């Protein structure tokens, strides 16, 4: 299969999954409908509407980790091509990436020492 065909198959998979779910919805729609009763559509908060609105700003207490995560995630984007050619290039590749990773790892240690690895 050519590259384009492969992505075509993947696209077909998405459409197929979507169609499957739509079929399920149609089957259940045919077999019965929702009886509208008061209070049925209240979200699961002990049987009554929550006192405060739900769509509010949520304090992401892991933001220290999240910032470090960004740095590491970017680094991983470089590591995949490096990993593929690693054996060819040999020990030089290890040293190159080692220096890069060492700097990043020192950053992690520094963040740790400054209390970034803590639920804020």
């Amino acid at each position: 299969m050519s590259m384009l065909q492969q992505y075509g198959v993947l696209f077909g998979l998405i459409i197929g999954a979507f169609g499957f779910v739509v079929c399920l919805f149609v089957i259940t729609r045919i077999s019965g409908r929702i009886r509208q009763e008061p209070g049925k559509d209240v979200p699961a908060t002990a049987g009554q509407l929550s006192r405060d609105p739900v769509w509010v700003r949520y304090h992401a207490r892991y933001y220290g980790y999240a910032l470090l995560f960004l740095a590491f995630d970017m680094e991983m984007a470089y590591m995949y091509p490096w990993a593929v050619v690693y054996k060819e290039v040999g020990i030089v590749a290890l040293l190159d990436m080692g220096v890069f990773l060492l700097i990043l790892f020192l950053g992690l240690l520094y963040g740790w020492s400054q209390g970034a690895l803590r639920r804020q």
Partner: protein
Amino acid sequence: MTTLLVLLLLAMGVYCVAVLEAWITSGRFRLMAPACSAIALLGRESVVPRKPDLLFFEMAPIVLLVAALLAAAVIPLSPDLIITDLATGALFLNAALAYVLVALIMAGWGPNGAYAMIGGWRFLGQLVAYAMLIVMPITAVAMRAESLATTDIVISQSGLWNVFYQPLGFVLFFLAAMGLAFLPPFDLPIAKGELASGVEAEYSGVRLAVFRLGRMVLIVTLAAATVTFYLGGWQGPSLPPWLWSAIKILLVTAAMLLVGRYVPRIREAHLLAWCWKFGIPLALLNIFIVGILLVVIP
């Protein structure tokens, strides 16, 4: 044709895993249980909570299912039983699995319910914890295989399985995969008994059925990924390749479910701290060790 065959095998795997999960969590072995509960779920009302974000609410289960299916598409069950043998298979797997987070955030935000919302945001924290432990061990695997294609990765293990070559990476990947599939010790977004099912709380009927199906496919896919990257994929003596894949995948799933049965749920703060203070240094060490091994023993 291959696609249909793989999807059929995947469906059978999902059914087996559903039976297995019911057996491990309830202690009763019933072959018909998943079929009965599927029919029951389809027969029930699927209530939409008041004032939802309808697009997010309706799409979340579908996105979960699609993400799991796309990830499954690059997993080889035997040399030719693979839906798409992409040259960037391992990377594609990561990209597809990233949408699990999107699905859960949508499922958390959509229904406008407090528990679901907390569950969704919690899973974002969980992603920050496990994501590096998925990608870093895969890097070490790709270093050995000199390729990102999943079939090449399996072939690279014909001498020695990666589970013996890089045991550290296997342990990290196994645990991170459980975190990604939110299986019991890491089931923070669902957290029955604490969050009242979290992101699943507002789903009922057919929507819940699709959500659960998506999660089951996800579990099977992650077990299959573990087998592909670390347990030699389809390789094994005498039996046909696809049967070896099936046996290994079921064993890995059983191991994942069993761990969840005997370990209490971990707190989000602890999960984050352990993953970043121990997991990531160990994952980097794993890459370093594999790098040395590859240079020393060609």
